[in-house]
């Protein structure tokens, strides 16, 4: 913070805010939060955009720059275009409760809407909720629901619909995909209607990041009309969004038309046409051949032609990555020095250049990706150091090296990455034999003892993007305990009480500065232990034809086209 602070004005503004919000304001005023991080945290705890502007002004910081609004509000193109998009084929029926794949979530969000949107910069923007506030303990969150919203079937949106939707997704006996996020956080009984346009969420434990679970990040959570059977959703796509269903053909595609009675700014395109592709190559050929205008997501490998400057590339920093785990309970990796040595052989900037043409961030062997505001960037980046790796290996009693096996899956750039790792390890005498399997053979039953992913000595697996690092911190790294359900993806068989304690503290922390402090401790601990090598976090890439504007993807996998236009 360098601006002059108007303490009088700030004091008045503080009176309107809750305890947690005021803590964040204080952090910002004291200069412990950057302007960008402050805006991000403020949106989470429900400080409204006008209030945010006043606070920034009182703190001597401009309120008019890009941060607060996000790019959804900036529409410049002409209305009426027909936008044709190519996305990955949904793998199952489009049921809001069970959808668990990118194609499916993309379909949900074409007509459905969330309480709030997690923007490309991870700020929360109000959608069907107009505001949200925590209690002092951040275990009760109260959401104000937007008035005057109508579902596509004419029904008006009220708190009842929100309560119905959230109880449907949190039912522990149900098959809801969102249970993975709501488990231990929110139970059906905790979803309470306060009045017709207010809903209170009574959490099982304090959670400073709860609003993210109501946002587009928790992609199943589009609001359904009360009593609506989600298994029938595929026939109507009923929602409140700017588009209505035209037609949907499983495995083939879908069309959507502009919703003339939308509550907000009307969509620009008169129609959108989605074509489903099972693999990347045909979708890229369709874009280069002019059949479609947008490719929802593509991997650099095989799509180099799109990077030549003839297409618009939308590049989002993301937390999507690969985890290379080493079994901490199996020789020779029981010794942390051996694990460090392998990690030290990798020349990460070169790997990012070769595999992603630079469209990726270098990883520092912890889940704290550069995209997360809580990532502690003061911890030094691990760089290639073969001499140090050799001396560590010698100190661990493996001066002559050793031979081991790395099991992985045939998926995008992963086999190439595995070969780079194997080649690099050879420099310190470690011979890594590769076994590249189909994804289904590799995952097996995804339980310990029945899965190459979880059982292999070295295992290289894919992880998708998340807006907060919580899942990355817990599932693959916290001590496995079947009874408590912790550490279900701990392929490294990492077991560290100190780590478990720090992660518990991190999740409970509700302000960025304490999150950052704990993150720093976690990052240091993981660099020292190195159960998993996090080599890179790759960017989420969307491509459009040169004449197309206003396409808004998110790193979770959404493709919003309501502001899209053609010139």
């Amino acid at each position, binding site marked *: 913070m360098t601006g002059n602070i108007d303490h009088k004005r700030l004091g008045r503004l503080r009176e309107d805010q809750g305890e947690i919000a005021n803590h964040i304001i204080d952090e910002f005023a004291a200069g412990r939060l950057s302007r960008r991080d402050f805006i991000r945290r403020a949106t989470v705890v429900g400080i409204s955009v006008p209030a945010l502007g006043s606070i920034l002004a009182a703190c001597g910081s401009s309120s008019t720059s890009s941060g607060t609004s996000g790019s959804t509000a900036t529409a410049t193109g002409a209305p009426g275009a027909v936008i044709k998009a190519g996305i990955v084929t949904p793998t199952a029926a489009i049921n809001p409760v069970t959808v668990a794949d990118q194609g499916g979530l993309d379909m949900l969000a074409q007509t459905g809407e969330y309480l709030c949107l997690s923007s490309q910069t991870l700020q929360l923007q109000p959608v069907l909720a107009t505001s949200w506030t925590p209690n002092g303990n951040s275990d009760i969150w109260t959401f104000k629901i937007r008035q005057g919203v109508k579902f596509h079937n004419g029904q008006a949106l009220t708190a009842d619909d929100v309560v119905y939707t959230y109880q449907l997704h949190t039912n522990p006996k149900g098959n809801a995909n969102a249970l993975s996020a709501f488990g231990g956080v929110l139970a059906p009984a905790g979803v309470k209607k306060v009045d017709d346009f207010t809903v209170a969420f009574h959490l099982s434990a304090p959670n400073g990041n709860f609003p993210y679970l109501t946002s587009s990040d928790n992609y199943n959570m589009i609001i359904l009309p009360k009593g609506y059977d989600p298994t029938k959703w595929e026939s109507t796509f009923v929602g409140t969004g700017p588009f209505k269903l035209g037609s949907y053909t499983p495995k083939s595609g879908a069309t959507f038309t502009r919703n003339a009675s939308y509550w907000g700014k009307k969509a620009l395109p008169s129609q959108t046409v989605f074509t489903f592709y099972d693999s*990347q190559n045909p979708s890229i050929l369709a874009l280069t051949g002019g059949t479609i205008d947008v490719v929802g997501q593509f991997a650099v490998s095989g799509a180099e032609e799109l990077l030549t400057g003839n297409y618009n590339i939308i590049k989002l920093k993301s937390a999507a990555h690969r985890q290379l785990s080493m079994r901490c309970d199996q020789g020779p990796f029981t010794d942390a020095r051996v694990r460090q040595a392998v990690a030290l052989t990798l020349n990460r900037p070169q790997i990012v250049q070769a595999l992603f043409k630079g469209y990726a961030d270098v990883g520092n062997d912890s889940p704290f990706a550069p995209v997360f505001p809580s990532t502690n960037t003061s911890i030094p980046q691990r760089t290639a150091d073969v001499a140090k790796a050799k001396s560590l290996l010698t100190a661990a009693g493996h001066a002559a090296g050793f031979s081991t096996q790395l099991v992985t899956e045939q998926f995008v750039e992963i086999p190439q990455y595995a070969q780079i790792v194997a080649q690099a390890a050879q420099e310190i005498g470690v011979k890594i034999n590769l076994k590249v399997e189909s994804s289904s053979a590799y995952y097996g039953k995804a339980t310990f003892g029945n899965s190459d992913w979880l059982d292999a000595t070295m295992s290289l697996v894919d992880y998708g993007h998340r807006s907060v690092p919580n899942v990355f911190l817990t599932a693959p790294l916290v001590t496995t305990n079947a009874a408590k359900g912790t550490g279900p993806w701990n392929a490294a068989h990492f077991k560290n009480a100190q780590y478990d304690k720090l992660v518990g503290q991190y999740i409970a922390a509700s302000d960025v500065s304490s999150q950052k402090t704990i993150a720093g401790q976690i990052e240091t601990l993981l660099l020292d232990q190195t159960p998993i090598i996090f080599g890179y976090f790759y960017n989420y890439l969307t491509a459009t034809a040169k004449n197309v504007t206003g396409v808004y993807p998110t790193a979770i996998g959404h493709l919003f086209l309501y502001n899209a236009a053609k010139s």
Partner: protein
Amino acid sequence: MTDIAGNAAPLEPGGPLGTLGPAGDMVTVATPVTAVPRSAWRLLLRRPTFIIGAVIIVFWVFCAIFGHAIAPYNPLEQQLLFNNTGPSSAHWFGTDTLGRDVLSRVLVGARDILVVTPLATILGTILGTALGLAMGYLGGPFDLVVGRFVEAVLALPAVIIAFLFIVALGPSTTTLIVVIGLIFTPLIARTVRAAVLTERNLDYLSSARLLGERPLRIMFREILPNVMPAILVEFTVRLGYAVFAVATLSFLGFGVQPPTPDWGSDIAADYSGLLAGYWWQVLFPALAIASLVTAVNLITDSIEQVLNS
């Protein structure tokens, strides 16, 4: 002489099934002969197609043995900063996604395919010949039962059977040899059986039986030399198919594991780069496979024609 071509044609993998009964076998082995005549070799060496095929095969065998010595670079050495570069004087065939020299990988990549292919074909030929001899000579219920079993196996696409085995046993060179060998066994058995059937009622076999020779001796000492030309041609035909089979399974990820250079798996690893214009990563390994298959077929044709002449 044996109508070998007509015999082999209906037996392609996945091809139409010929009838198995004696009436359906259009094989005419006229008189007992003694194996492959020595003059055949001299005739073969006069055929340019045979010479061309042989030269190509000798070249690849040479690469398989001495590939590492003649390759300009270490085929495993990555130069990440020089990946996806086109053919140049430094890298005649360009570099792949990981900056490895494609020429070196093509040269060294001959090894596994040239080990697996002949061994698998030999295995299939030995097993198929034994089975075919037994079916043809013993006939009766044995022929009937085994014949139906063979038909059942032939009804399944070869790649599906290979998948089943490889998934169950795990991918390795040995698995590949055994699986392809076993898939070829019924195919070769049918050809051999058909050849044996025409021999079975000839006088020299009646004499052998009257002399009290044992069935095993009759099969391997009397019949086998006389059906050898058919087996030889069948072997070379199958060799060509084995090259395809090995390359296909490697392409699908069931063969040699990376980073070991292999034509099929190298094509699989880099074919998505075609869209980006990195044609050299795929073209050269593909040409290598094509040249090997062509060479084997040239030799097959020559042998067939010499034996028919």
